[in-house]
Every structure is written in C-alpha cells, then in structure tokens.
C-alpha cells in the first residue's frame, strides 16, 4: 500500500497538460554589399569649351549599398595615371583630372590613389542613403594628347 501511494503521487505531480516544444536558431552574419552600375558611356570632349571648363557627367553611375551595420564607402583611383587606349593618347595624364561627387551635392573630390570617403550611412538598404548616383567631373585641360583613355575606380565599402 505504501508503494501504491508513492507511485500515484508521482503521476499527479507530472501532469502538465498536452504540449511540446522545439528549438532552433538562425545566425546572422555581418554583410556589406555594394553594386556600382555605369549610367553613362564614354565621355567625349568635342568643343573648346569642354577643354576650358571640363565636362561634368551628372548621374555618371549608380551605387547601391546593402549592409546590416553602419557603413562607409570610399573611392580611389586604381592607378596613378590614365591608361592610354589609342595611338596619340598621353601616358602621363594623372588620375587627378577626374573628380567625383554625390549627385545633388556640391563639391567634387579629386581622384587619387589615396582612398577618400564618399559617403557613410546607417544599416539597411533601399533608402536614399543606400541608393544614390554620382557625378564625375573630367578636366584635363590642354596638356594631353587627344585619344581614348580609361581609369579604374575602386569603391570600397566597410562597416563603421
């Protein structure tokens, strides 16, 4: 009899209703994604005024940022000089004839091989901060031969 009482007591104490649970998790990694899309073709210098004043290409490219941390995007020239792609083009045209700004902002930043901050922003995506265009100013003057030139620009996205 004593044994029976003990056992019944255990059953009553174990009654918790009818439920059950499962557990899991998800791991979120730090992510920074940048997409640069060219919106313009080759910039041409066709008139004397282009040489006197330079050429500004508004909305030259679009930049999209996706990041789950606050971020900074910087830019720099891939090389000290432009690459001459045609016969008469000069090989000593420096990166500094080119400058960049965020579309709608004032003040161009002259391109160099030193990285410069273009913009910073909060985590997220899809806002004006994360999706913007840039303008480019080309102003080589009269010192360089006519021809076709190219310059690589490196955009670097880092978390703050």
């Amino acid at each position, binding site marked *: 009899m004593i044994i029976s009482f003990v056992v019944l007591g255990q059953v009553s*104490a*174990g*009654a918790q209703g009818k439920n059950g*649970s*499962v557990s*899991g*998790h998800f*791991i979120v990694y730090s*992510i920074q994604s940048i997409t640069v899309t060219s919106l313009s073709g080759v910039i041409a210098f066709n008139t004397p005024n282009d040489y006197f004043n330079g050429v500004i290409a508004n909305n030259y490219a679009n930049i999209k940022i996706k990041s*789950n941390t606050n971020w900074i995007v910087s830019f720099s020239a891939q090389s000290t000089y432009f690459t001459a792609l045609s016969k008469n083009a000069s090989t000593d045209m420096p990166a500094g004839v080119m400058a960049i700004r965020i579309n709608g902002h004032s003040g161009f930043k002259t391109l160099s091989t030193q990285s410069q901050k273009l913009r910073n922003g909060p985590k997220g995506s899809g806002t004006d901060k994360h999706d913007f265009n840039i303008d480019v100013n080309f102003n080589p003057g009269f010192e360089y031969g006519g021809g076709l030139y190219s310059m690589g620009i490196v955009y670097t996205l880092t978390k703050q």
Partner: protein
Amino acid sequence: MRYIYVIALILFTGFYTFSQGAYKGDDDDDNKKEKYKDDDDDDDGKGGGGDKNYLEVDLHSSINFTVSQPSHFENTQTINNAIKLKFKTKDSDCSVFAKISSYNTPQGANSNVIPIELEMRSNDSKKAMSVMTQPLQLTLYDQLLFKNKKENSTNNFFYDVRLMPLGYDYPEGQYSFTILFTMTQP
C-alpha cells in the same frame, strides 16, 4: 531482508517510469522527440499510442538557419517537413496552438518581431477543422493551427519552418527561438 530488496527495486522502477512521463525535453538538441502526456486514467502505453489524449512534437530536421548572403536577407528560407505533430484526441474535440515561448537576440536587435513562420505541409486527419493553411508568422502569443473532432485514431500534421526575409536591419549574431505547441480540450 529479501523483501526489503524487492520493495526497494519496485520503488526505484516506479520513480524512474513516472519521471520519464513528466519529462520536459532539452530544447537545445535536434531531432529529439518531446512529449507531454496528460494524466488521464489510461496509462497503459508509454509510446503515445495507448493514451487517449496526447500531443507529441517530433523534430524531423534541425530548424537552424544561416543568413550570410544577400539572397538570405531578401528571401524566405524554408526547412520542409521539419516538424511533425502527432496527436490523439479521443475524449473530446481539441484545438492546437503554436507560439514562440522563448526568443533571444543579440544586443541591439529588435526582439518584438519574430521572423519565424509555420506552414502546414500535409496532414492525415479526416476530422480537422479551421486548419491554417497559409504561412503563419509566430508571435509570443498562442495562435490556432487547427481544430480536430474527437476520434480514436492518431493524426499527424507536418509543418515547414520558414525564416522570413530579414532585410538589413538585423545585426549580426545568433537568434534563438523555441516554438511551443499546445493542445487544448474543453
């Protein structure tokens, strides 16, 4: 002296058996069957099949996700047939609910919105009612999954577990959750 040994042996066996019946499983382990039985008078079976009313939650696949690339942040990830609910409701109709009973986030994360959904993949019940067939985003409060008329046979419901698109507002770190299923009877 021999009787004392016998009594001791019976006592030990009795405690062991009923402790197992009241077991609340370790939430951290995957593929672990967790079962909470009621205390009806039908305690003739230990595997669920002999009980009149019970709910058994089986984890068929681990419900762990990795969010490491843009597509993960922007699209739903699904683990198909991850959870099986096995139940019997012999005495009366039942309702089965689900909620998040525990949600732990890294510092700085929004813990008010839980991006976990359940979607019913299939079931073998002929007496189910009010079945939620659309993906159901879980909250900290019980939400109805289905109702079932009383019947003698065992029924099974299979569920996908879905991680909703997080967007880029989720800081890095581990987010842990526990889904609690509850079967109620009037």
